[in-house]
């Protein structure tokens, strides 16, 4: 049977299914001459229609692309990640694997084999370009051709199990703290942490048990501590054997935050417990005396409609929108909860908040996030009925002044997660460029936009125009020429 996606997500969201290379892309505006490096992205693009129509987009095939920028010019390349699963399905010319992270729903011929789709994050650490999916080991790619080279375990220093999509690298020491959850198999509460130094040598391993089995997508680090959030998404071996998608959302389930010392062995781990708000991603954390201060985008309820509520209640779009909040933990208190401050209550988005990564774990002033700003114009006639449902601006939050500045790409555009590229390695915080992909929903094509982070209101200073639309992005990262020469 030939491939037929009729009835699947269409319009701008139809699968693209091709790989591309463009030498010297078309550009409008002026690309700053001091911007030199590579913007890597990863996301999802289905090669074959899913076995189950209500499967999560997070189960789509991993797709990576890159924009190489130097001298005011940009080259573009994209590729599917050649996972074991991708190759098996290409050979069979159809989907073999079942629901998101449920091997029991796959065809018998592939049950028990890797379900890795490598579609969540792409990072450059220890001299390797890694594409990450939290349920599986890291996969290393060639940073120029994007060719898949295979799983990476730091030469066998760490296990070949789940590896987070959000390892944290201390910008001063170069130490990476990474982890994997459900580390002893689907439905297990075991979490493993690894410390890997700037030379790629593992220096420590710590195993902990979470208070419940839940999605643990991200952590934060301060100079002294590791902060570990749980979420309302849970699973169990019984759920998986019943043929359900990996996660079910439990409305109202308490959120737990674990805090342990970076220089410890895990025995000091302390769990705090609070309301069932959802912290999928973090922005940053700082330790100030006995207090740990964690900033993050938080939503009151589930932000992922494709992971159903276990009580059968419908998805609540309003509850899935995030605001930047500050949770403060008093380590000297006997209280097992935290204090919350909603820092920017009027600016809501999808929870992909970032910062100037040179300040990870350190005191910082700025963060930014894609937001849904209903006050900005949206041309629904040209772009479809997506007003209020797509990210239409980047908001730069000044945590010190309490102010917000926005960058608006246009009335028919949606924005993927943006990244920050410093003007120079020693530039002040947020002195540089906001970079991200904007989808022109009217023209049915995508563009890379570059804006001056100090003048966001002026909009993009350059647009790199692609003659096609891009797949849905999850995360991306900027790798400066000083770290990885663009050639």
């Amino acid at each position, binding site marked *: 049977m030939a491939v037929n996606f009729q009835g699947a997500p269409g319009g701008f969201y139809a699968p693209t299914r091709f790989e591309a290379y463009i030498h010297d892309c078309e550009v409008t505006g002026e690309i700053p001459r001091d911007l030199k490096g590579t913007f890597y992205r990863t996301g999802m693009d289905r090669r074959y229609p899913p076995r189950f129509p209500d499967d999560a987009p997070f189960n789509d095939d991993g797709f990576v692309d890159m924009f190489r920028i130097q001298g005011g010019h940009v080259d573009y390349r994209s590729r599917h990640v050649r996972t074991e699963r991708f190759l098996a399905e290409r050979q069979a010319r159809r989907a073999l694997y079942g629901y998101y992270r449920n091997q029991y729903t796959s065809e018998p011929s592939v049950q028990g084999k890797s379900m890795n789709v490598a579609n969540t994050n792409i990072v450059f650490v220890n001299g390797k370009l890694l594409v990450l999916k939290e349920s599986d080991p890291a996969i290393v790619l060639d940073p120029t051709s994007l060719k898949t080279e295979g799983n990476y375990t730091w030469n066998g220093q760490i296990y070949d199990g789940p590896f987070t999509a959000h390892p944290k690298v201390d910008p001063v020491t170069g130490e990476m703290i990474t982890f994997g959850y459900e580390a002893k198999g689907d439905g297990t509460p075991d979490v493993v942490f690894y410390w890997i130094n700037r030379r790629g040598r593992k220096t420590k391993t710590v195993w902990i048990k979470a208070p419940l089995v839940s999605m643990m997508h991200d952590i934060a680090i301060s100079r002294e501590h590791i902060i570990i959030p749980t979420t309302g998404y849970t699973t169990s071996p019984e759920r998986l054997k019943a043929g359900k998608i990996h996660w079910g959302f439990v409305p109202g389930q308490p959120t737990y935050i674990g805090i342990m010392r970076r220089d410890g062995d895990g025995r000091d781990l302390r769990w705090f417990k609070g309301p069932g708000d959802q912290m999928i991603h973090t922005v940053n954390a700082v330790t100030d005396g006995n207090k740990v201060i964690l900033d993050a985008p938080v939503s009151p309820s589930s932000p992922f409609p494709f992971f159903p509520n276990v009580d059968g209640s419908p998805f609540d779009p309003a509850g899935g929108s995030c605001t930047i909040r500050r949770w403060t933990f008093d380590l000297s208190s006997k209280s097992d909860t935290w204090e919350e401050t909603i820092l920017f209550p009027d600016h809501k988005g*999808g929870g992909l908040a970032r910062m100037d990564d040179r300040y990870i774990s350190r005191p910082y002033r700025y963060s930014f996030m894609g937001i849904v700003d209903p006050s900005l114009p949206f041309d629904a006639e040209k772009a479809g009925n997506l007003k209020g449902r797509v990210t239409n601006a980047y908001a730069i939050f000044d945590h010190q002044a309490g102010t917000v500045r926005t960058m608006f790409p246009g009335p028919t555009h949606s924005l993927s997660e943006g990244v920050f590229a410093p003007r120079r390695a020693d530039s002040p915080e947020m002195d540089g460029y906001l970079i991200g992909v904007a989808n022109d929903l009217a023209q049915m094509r995508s563009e890379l936009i570059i804006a001056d982070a100090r003048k966001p209101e002026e909009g993009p200073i350059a647009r790199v125009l692609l003659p096609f639309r891009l797949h*849905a992005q999850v995360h991306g990262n900027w790798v400066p020429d000083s770290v990885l020469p663009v050639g």
Partner: protein
Amino acid sequence: MTHIQTTRRAFMGHLGLGIGMGALVASRLPGLWSLDAAEATAVPPRPVVSIFMDLPWVDMTGRAEPYVPPRRAVGEDFSNYPYYMV
């Protein structure tokens, strides 16, 4: 005691006429007949493709707001494009 003579065919005919008239009356009463009719003719909900925070998803209950692409983005032979046919 009076016996009414009837045939099986006549009895079934009268029964059918009575049910039909009852249904006709009931159909004019809001909330009475219509509820049963809805149950009798219930069809599974039609799943829709929806968008939340830039990501497409399929709502099997059909209650989410569907994504309707701009007309020029949809081929003429894909008139049902926003809907998942299962």
